[in-house]
């Protein structure tokens, strides 16, 4: 879909949909929202719906940041301590590389 050809009202609806969809534990929707609407929100000359789009993009970015922090922390902890956790570590794992503790 090309945003250029979309009327401003529809842009806003789309942006809101992506923003709300992100709350269903789908941080990638927020990522898409941020990337896709960044130009519309901050670079384009002002239009009526722009302030709202701006809010949604900002909030999406915030949510995305939250997810990135949480996931990075968890993955670091998991990779570092999996072997030490032993039994718990094994049960938390989906695949265990062969021949590693």
């Amino acid at each position: 879909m090309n945003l250029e050809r979309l009327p401003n009202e529809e842009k806003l609806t789309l942006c809101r949909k992506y923003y709300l969809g992100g709350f269903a534990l789908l941080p990638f929707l927020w990522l898409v929202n941020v990337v896709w609407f960044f130009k519309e929100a901050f670079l384009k000359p002002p239009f009526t719906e722009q302030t709202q789009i701006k809010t949604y993009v900002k909030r999406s970015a915030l949510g995305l940041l939250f997810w990135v922090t949480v996931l990075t922390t968890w993955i670091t902890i998991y990779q570092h301590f999996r072997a030490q956790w032993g039994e718990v570590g094994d049960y938390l794992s989906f695949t265990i590389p062969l021949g590693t503790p």
Partner: protein
Amino acid sequence: MDLLSNKWIVYLALCLFVAGINCNSVENKIYVKLNYTVPCVRLLNSTHQIGCQSSLSGDVGVLHVLESEENLDFVLRNGRNPPYMVIMESSLFTRSVMMKLKNGSSRVAGVAVVEPTSNPPDGFSPHTRCPNENTGVYSENYGPGLAHCNTTKWNPLGNGLSYEEFDFPIFSMKDDNDTQLIRQCYMDHNRPMNGSDPQYPLCAMQLSSHMSAVTSTPTCMRRNSISFSMSNDMVCDPLSDQNIWAPSKPLNTTQNGHKANESVIIVSARLDSRSFFSEIGPGAESAASGLITLLAAAHALRNATQDAQLDRTIFYTFFHGETFDYIGSSKMVYDMEKNQFPIDLDNVHSVLEIGQVGLHSSSNLWLHTDPVSMRNSSIQEEVKNLIANLKSAAAGLNVSVTEPGVTQPLPPSSFQRFLRARPFPGVVIEDYNSSFSNKYFQSMFDNADSLNVLYPPNLTPEEQLNHVTNTAKSLAEVATTVARALFIQAGGEKTQISSIKADELMVSRMLYSFLISSNNSWTQEIVGLKDVVHLNNNTVNFYISVEQQASLPTILVKYLLANLTGTAVNVTQENCKNQKESEDDKESKHLYNYFWVPGAAPPNSTERDGFCVRSTVHWSRAISPAFLMENYTTSEYSTWTESRWKEIKGRIFLVASHDLEMLTLGVGIGVLLSSLLLTYIMSSKADILFSSGREPTSATY
């Protein structure tokens, strides 16, 4: 136009075809695959992992032929091109060299040991000095002064290498063409010339033996059972095989638990051995000497036990996996305690165990007993009785029997597992007093040579099979002693024992079958058709391995015991296979086992005359009870497992210097980037580049 393009397609296809063939030959030109690769594999117990492993794709190192221990400096410090793949003669395969390599393992990619053609004269044992230290009977609660080999180290030559963990692959290689090629490659490329480092390209070797299991048995058994994993790969398997046993008179084996009015003398031998490398476990003295003696004794007793009505039943038993913390015997005792065996511990009158009885240049047998249980006067009386029987049996024979000092504990033996359950009278027969006379205990040198099974030169295999060696003679004497003692112990008349005599020819044939080649004219006659395929022309490997593989020692002992103690019966092949003597016979299978064996071919025919052998031979699983209880952290039972692996291979090739490799990679990346750039420029300037001569017309193709 059409024709032309067709032609091009044909050319292109042809080119690709030729290129495909060339690809293969390029690989063959780069790599030389090694044919004979015997790795050291990873084993795990409740707390540790032992053995060796490579990285997932195999470890690569520059070849270095180690000439002496001093030469290690080159590998561990001075050499400019680490990591090194160390090739050594087995005389350098010692604890000190291997531990230095282990500690400097960042500069060591792997080790290949060349098997020698003769045994080291000073002895070599990669096993520990105190075998099965923690799973025998002696502990803080039972003869604390005798625990942990406090009074005597049974295996003084043991260097414990088999129980070390190495994080690089270690392979064994035969001294053959491959080894010659490796040496040649080393001489041509890697040898330092007048003090200066050799120039690239250098000769390198890659060894792959990546092991799936890691850490310990609890870990790998847990990972075996995790089922939601994507790749449901098993990573390890318990060491297990079969115990084989045969009572001297038929017992109903389908009813388990206590048998009324049954008194049993268990006479046992061990069925396994090991060495540092998993596929080499000759165990000539540590396993074969004892089990051949027991088989010969059972054979000698066949007629005597059938003719005379004896008070007690003799129970010929072969325990598997004794090397790994008494797997077989602990399972049988466990079964007897749980009433899952045709007899229980109350039925056991006494135990006689035949250990290592190779009799190296002596004719002295030692009767080992347990000083702790002998404090009980009734046990002591029974033990004295058994010893007296053995002594009277040895009278007039070419062996003498002696008792070691009274304060000495039992050597490592299956009998210890019975004593863990309760006190039993019992004797362990060995050819040593306080430490093994076997200099090669559970090493790859514990072979026919070490047992002195030597044949005169120029004998054909058939002549060797039937040649009675001195070792066979002395083993037959031991077997006669054991058989006669058992006969008296079972309540037979002393006057009849002179007729009991082990057959020297049988012993010779068994020695040949276990130590030289299991595929010979004799075994082909007595091993059942479905198992004949397992026979081969090599020394039998006594390593227990995992359950999936049929193990040759088990197969051989099963059929030998059946043929030597059983009788040929006139039963059709069909009925024989269905375990019955006639069409409506439903009882025999509870008492006997029936094997259809190929038999010998009559002189003027190639068709063998098969027949049915009826015997009391039975077998039961030899797996540590820890795996039945799913308690992998127990210290009471064996917890040994063997890791699985995907691929074992070795190959040699020439490597270029690191700089040249990087340069090639750099040029490659450069070409890629410049071509991308060029394409970009060309496509962006396409209208200028391609419209010069021609009018921009609307396309009319």
